[in-house]
């Protein structure tokens, strides 16, 4: 169907740009990897795919991803629903606190958990309750899940924020549905797009997660595809191991693709329920009849267990002179912080901030574009495509980009930026997509019929309800980019050291004290913007002012 000129130009333009970026950031690098493998194995992969233990590794990987997804997504959704209730005391605080795990790099999180719950850890030394399993598959699953919950939470929360539909829940209640039935039959189904988005993200992210299985899985000999990839690289001065590593990485891409592509193709359109713009009352919380303070108490416990103790262990490690010493004042030191806070660090910090801000901003834009384009039949594959690079372990993705563009961009910030864009595109896209599904088309039509061009309509009418999602996308990308380690430590060159590179290069990766210090600093550094972010989010949310029933005690 021909549309009138100007909009054609705009739409075609955006479409072309996005497509070409997908090629540059996703298709071509992956193709180059594949081509490398092909060229150096003459297509004979049997010796790799047949190698001992690979089956186990693949099984572990898939199992881990499945378990984590099943655990993390519902937890995140529950958090989001609970924190939507107006009557939960300290809601603002919780909304920030829930996000803290994102602020900590994977392997630091892993370490902090072993410190908190492992043998000779916090709980062990205080209450004698040490958990051996923490160094093993279960521990890995738990920590990866804990790490994923904030993501799921954020995606669902913005799904909720993008539109309040209290009358729909009220209608369920007066139809005789109890709070939980209403939640199950109405609220959650309306969240499906957001939940699906969260699900895909968490699943793929887990497929590609490396640090946590490496640190916590090794004692139990728990190997995943990613740990095998790294093993191959670290002993892989020779071509063979390198090719094996690359092949395994591509195997991950295939695994991710074979899950995500069908999911997107089948679920995507079906999950979308076209909404009509209906007059909306204001939010009545309906997450259950339990008084808010109980919920608050529950949240408190959850946070203490998943964030509080581990971060405490982290702080302890940061201020303790040497590992193994009790965190008593006599052993306290600021060395770790001094080691972290050198002139080079600050130079790198500004660089990293700049990089993270640029990446996050570009990503949010790109994510939004894909979210819009995927609604056209021609654009549907895009969403799956941009998810594929998320599964690539940082090391492999960096290699792919070097192989593709190293000739021109090696040792520049540009290539690091490209890496971030490629890695995090899905992070930016899925939340926006999930929120966009809750936007009724009539509202845009009304804007068009009021004389607004396509762009103006988006800017003035669509953008505002989507703002929470966009901000969340920006926020996730910013954080992840800010403390990204692997890719930058592989891609940096003179004058493009990122924060993580400088700090972690000051001693072997995994040197805990300074790394802990770094995480503590980052956390402090980001807790502030994080708080601001949520305040903003509350401001831009479609207002929820209502004498909601929950403010008055119910009779059971």
């Amino acid at each position, binding site marked *: 169907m021909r549309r009138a000129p100007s909009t054609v130009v705009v739409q075609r333009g955006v479409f072309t740009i996005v497509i070409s970026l997908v090629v540059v950031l996703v298709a071509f690098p992956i193709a180059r990897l594949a081509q490398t493998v092909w060229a150096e194995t003459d297509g004979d992969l049997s010796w790799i795919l047949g190698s001992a233990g690979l089956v186990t590794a693949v099984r572990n990987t898939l199992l881990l991803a499945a378990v984590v997804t099943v655990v993390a997504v519902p937890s995140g959704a529950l958090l989001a629903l609970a924190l939507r209730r107006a009557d939960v005391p300290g809601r603002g605080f919780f909304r920030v606190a829930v996000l803290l795990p994102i602020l900590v790099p994977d392997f630091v999180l892993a370490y902090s958990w072993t410190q908190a719950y492992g043998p000779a850890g916090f709980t062990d030394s205080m209450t004698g309750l040490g958990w051996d399993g923490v160094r093993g598959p279960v521990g890995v699953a738990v920590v990866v899940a804990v790490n994923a919950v904030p993501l799921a939470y954020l995606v669902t929360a913005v799904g909720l924020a993008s539109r309040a539909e209290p009358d729909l829940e009220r209608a369920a209640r007066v139809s005789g549905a109890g709070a939980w039935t209403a939640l199950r039959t109405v609220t959650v189904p309306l969240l499906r797009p957001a939940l699906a988005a969260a699900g895909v993200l968490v699943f793929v992210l887990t497929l590609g997660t490396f640090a946590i299985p490496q640190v916590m899985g090794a*004692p139990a000999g728990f190997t995943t595809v990613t740990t095998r990839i790294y093993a191959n690289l*670290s002993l892989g001065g020779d071509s063979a191991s*390198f090719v094996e590593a690359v092949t395994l990485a591509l195997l991950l891409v295939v695994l991710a693709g074979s899950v995500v592509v069908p999911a997107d193709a089948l679920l995507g359109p079906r999950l979308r329920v076209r909404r009509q713009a209906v007059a909306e009352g204001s939010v009545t919380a309906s997450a259950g009849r339990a008084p808010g303070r109980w919920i608050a108490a529950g949240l408190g416990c959850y946070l203490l267990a998943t964030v509080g103790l581990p971060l405490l262990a982290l702080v302890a490690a940061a201020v303790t002179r040497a590992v193994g010493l009790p965190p008593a004042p006599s052993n306290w030191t600021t060395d770790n912080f001094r080691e972290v806070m050198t002139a080079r660090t600050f130079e790198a910090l500004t660089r990293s901030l700049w990089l993270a801000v640029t990446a996050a901003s570009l990503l949010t834009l790109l994510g939004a574009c894909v979210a819009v384009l995927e609604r056209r039949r021609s654009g549907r594959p895009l969403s799956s495509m941009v998810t594929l690079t998320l599964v690539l372990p940082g090391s492999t993705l960096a290699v792919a980009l070097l192989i593709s563009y190293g000739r021109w961009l090696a040792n520049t910030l540009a290539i690091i930026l490209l890496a971030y864009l490629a890695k995090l595109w899905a992070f930016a896209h899925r939340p926006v997509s999930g929120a966009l599904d809750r936007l009724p088309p009539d509202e845009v039509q009304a804007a068009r019929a009021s004389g607004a061009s396509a762009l103006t309509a988006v800017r003035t009418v669509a953008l505002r309800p989507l703002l929470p999602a966009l901000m969340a996308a920006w926020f996730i990308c910013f954080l992840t980019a800010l403390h990204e380690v692997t890719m930058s430590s592989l891609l940096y060159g003179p004058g493009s050291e990122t924060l993580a590179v400088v700090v972690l290069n000051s001693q072997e990766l995994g040197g805990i004290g300074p790394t802990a210090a770094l995480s503590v600093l980052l956390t402090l550094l980001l807790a502030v913007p994080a708080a601001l972010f949520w305040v903003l989010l509350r401001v831009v949310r479609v207002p929820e002012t209502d004498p909601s029933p929950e403010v008055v005690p119910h009779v059971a």
Partner: protein
Amino acid sequence: GDGGQSEGAASDTITVYTCVSDETIQPIISDFRDKNPGTEVDLFRAPTGELNARVAADKRSGGLRADVIWACDPLTMQAYVDQGLVGGWVPDDASGIPADYRTDDYVGAHILYMVAVSHDGSKAPKSWDDLTDPGEKVAVPDPSFAASALGALGYFADSPDYGVQFYDELKHNGAVQVSSPDDVTVGVAQGVYDAGITIATSAYKAQQDGSPVQVAWPEPGAIAIYGPVALVKNSADEKAAKNFVGYVVSKEGQTTVAESGAYPTMEGIDGPTVPEGAPVVLPDWKSIGQQKDRLLSEYQSIFGG
């Protein structure tokens, strides 16, 4: 390599790829600069895994962008040589370095000693097989993750009175595999494990910081893994690069290495603690290189989950 120019760097700028820790490489570089004014040194430092990935990627996108590579184990370096990336030249005055620590393609510039670390209170092992005593909870680094650990594995596997079954016995006494030597040190320091196999530097550092650990150099000896430095083939800056390699293995260079807290390869330079008459043994890297996969799979059949 030609990367040197493609970056548009000044012609007297050389690039060094290494996995040596900053504490060691930084003083070396600054010292070298002082001695060779006008030569700039760009550094790419990353753990072996990332270093390998970088090299592999460079190789496949227009050649190595380094002039000198300083690796942390001969295995990796040998692989580079086999791919024709480095080697073919060693400084003439490398003779200061024991023959065990050099080939015609590269020269050892520092050494990692795999030693035994044990928690205060539990007894320090006299010989390696004390680790297999019942009741000792031992941590071993994952050889598929750290080349140093692979070196140890290689040594034990080859030595007639140990062999791979050494790991078997360890495992039977409840030994646990952790990912890196550092993790061994941390774990032992915290008392999660009674003892473990780790790198001397890491163990001594913990001890100096005050961690409750003791270090032992068990019989038949601490396993020495040397970190070789080599010249990149057709380096853009042959001269400056050769100067650098030469400097690193020269007396001053080795002194600086020693002062930085790493073990020099050159004899007669007083570096960090090596107990009086502490025995040292050397793994056979050639054979390790050949039977790496067999070793690892045998090992994993023991420690793999």
